[in-house]
């Protein structure tokens, strides 16, 4: 950032004259920040605190919120069976889709990193789903892929297997959503690719001289050295998948069905807020989700001490 031209205090602004040059520079910084800061206060901070307040109220959007204290939180954990269901569904989704996604991303990145011809093309092809994946259009497309007369069943038919409507069955509907999530492995893959390129070739060469095979090189060199990136992707993907909404909404037509098998936490929150007009309850659900994600992230950070290698410490 360029220094102000004059280091002398400006005679016309009395206030400025009492600041040293460093403080003057900071002042300009703060002034430039004001537009963003106003936006942050009004569009982010205020709504967040408003929702915290609302989580202790009964609010149906039309009439004023009515203070009920912890009633919403108590109801969630003691009387709401669909809430428990939404937790189950969401946890299943997170605990299955994130590891699968990261494994796919890492494996494909490792294969691509070997220097395939047309690497930019493959990279783009694999990255594309993660750009489009959360969209309404793709979700609608997914209905076609896993419907009774969809692409997937067409594929199975090649082997003489007659498939059913996967999205219509409570035991399989969630799995189609997990597949949709894993299909979007492109984003973490690109990050892994970048990380893989940074591993010094000399390490591999040294290992080869010692007789290391592909598998050993991968597990003893590659993986340890990119653990920071694995950690990074893990955090991001966990946070993101807890918040998944659009695919579940579209594929279940907003119901979370069949039989609540795709009732994601956020979808249930949406139902409570916008279909049943229980904004207070929905707000408390939102804050509990924040707490859950916070706990998972904290666990991740804590555990990272044990498996992430940053290369600048003694192990």
């Amino acid at each position, binding site marked *: 950032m360029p220094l102000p031209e004059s280091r002398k205090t400006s005679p016309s602004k009395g206030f400025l004259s009492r600041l040293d040059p460093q403080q003057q520079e900071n002042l300009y910084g703060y002034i430039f920040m004001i537009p963003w800061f106003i936006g942050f206060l009004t569009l982010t901070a205020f709504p967040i605190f408003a929702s915290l307040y609302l989580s202790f109220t*009964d609010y149906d*959007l*039309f*009439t004023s919120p009515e203070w009920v204290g912890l009633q919403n939180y108590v*109801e969630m954990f003691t*009387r*709401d*069976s669909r809430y428990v269901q939404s937790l189950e569904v969401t946890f299943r989704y997170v605990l299955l889709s994130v590891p699968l996604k990261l494994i796919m991303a890492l494996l494909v990145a490792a294969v691509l990193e070997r220097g395939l011809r047309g690497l930019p093309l493959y990279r783009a092809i694999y990255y594309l789903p993660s750009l489009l994946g959360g969209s309404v259009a793709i979700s609608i497309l997914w209905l076609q892929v896993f*419907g*009774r007369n969809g692409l997937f069943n067409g594929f199975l038919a090649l082997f003489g297997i007659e498939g*059913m*409507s996967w*999205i*219509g*069955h*409570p035991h399989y509907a969630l799995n189609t959503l997990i597949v949709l999530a894993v299909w979007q492995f492109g984003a973490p893959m690109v990050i892994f690719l970048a990380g893989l390129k940074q591993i010094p070739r000399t390490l591999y060469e040294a290992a080869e001289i010692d007789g290391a095979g592909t598998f050993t090189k991968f597990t003893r060199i590659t993986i340890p050295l990119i653990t920071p990136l694995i950690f990074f992707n893990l955090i991001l993907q966990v946070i993101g998948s807890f918040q998944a909404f659009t695919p579940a909404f579209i594929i279940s*037509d*907003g*119901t979370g*069905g*069949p*039989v*609540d098998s795709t009732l994601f936490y956020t979808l249930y929150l949406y139902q409570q807020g*916008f*279909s*049943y*007009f*229980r904004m207070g309850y929905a707000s408390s659900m939102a804050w509990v989700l924040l707490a859950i994600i916070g706990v998972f992230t904290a666990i991740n950070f804590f555990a990272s001490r044990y498996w992430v290698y940053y290369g600048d410490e003694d192990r």
Partner: protein
Amino acid sequence: MKRTIFVILALLLAFPPGVFAQDDAEQEPVELRYSAWVSPSRQEMLNTLFDLYEEQNPNITIVREFSDFGGYWDVLATQTAGGNPPDLMTFLYNFKDDYASRGVLLDMTPYIEDETLDLSDIPQGVRVFGETGDEYHLVIIGSTAPALFYNETMIEEAGMEMPEMFESWDQFKEFSLELTENLPEGNYALEDAGRLDAIFNFWLRQQGKSFFDGETLGFEQEDLVNWWTLWSDLREAGAIPDAETFQEFAFVPTQDSLFANSRAAMRITNANQLPTYQQYSEDVFSLQMLPRGEFVGDYLGAAFLAVAAETEHPEEAIALLNFIINTPEAAVLMATEYGPPGSTAMQEVVRPTFDESQQKVLNYVGEVSDILETPVAIPPERGNEVEAAYLRFYEETTFNLAPLDDVVSRFFQEAETILGSDS
């Protein structure tokens, strides 16, 4: 003198007489927002109707806010909460109290009294739906009733004859089972109607009970077990779609439904839908009364229009309302889209213009109106949550994931939780 005249002339030119006179309110451009849930044919019809109105009233522009039924109430609630509801809203009876009690709907009483809104041709029995206490909020644009649609062609081809009326649900069940045997593989006797809490209510009313009774459920667990067993039996026999097929067709639009594509011979749905289904098929569709019971379970449903309380143009909104329900052109255009018009005068106007399926609807609604006994009980607050729960638990039964008694008792638990809490 000359100078004076010159000045006066100049003043007259600059300020011609009348320039400060009040403009006719009619000359000011007015925008009215109108919201409705639509199917493609309904959207076309409404657009034609509004274009016609705009032609006749050049200063009025009708901003059309069409959507599909699924998201309609969410959007309306959000708009209303934001202080921004449309000027005219298509409405349903069971949402009236929610909105009216919060002062969101315009009280039309003054306009009715001075007759700018003419309700004189609407029978009293139907007119009362719009009342909330001393105020008047909803104007009926069409009435309908649940009916049993059937595909004459398909049934004939199966070598069977449709009775004029089913004297009981048992007779209906037997007929459906027999029909299933005579239909080609992959076709069903009827579409799943067990999922419709409205039809369950109908069936309950025929036994002197009701889905809701004030703030609680108006029936016993045994009733629900019996009702769901009826549909389980039909499903097991292949008379209605299996669980996955049911899911597949649960939310499809009319033109993709099993009935419209001659894959199901019967369907229970609202009478006014008949022409819409008919247009998608070469087969002959018809309708008749639902199976009879001990008491009369039939009821009239209707679509209404309401006006926003805070609208900037109440007179123009009421004028448009009046146009829709009282002018022959509107009545002819709307035909049976929402069911026969509320106004008896308009019913006579449109009768000669109706095609065969529209005539059937008109006659059917007339028949039902004649036998009506008790109106439907108003659902309690959070009633729609119970109705959503009904569908969810019904879905469970379609997959046979648990014994019926178990599912029913869990539904009761959930319903009691929802209705019992003070909200």
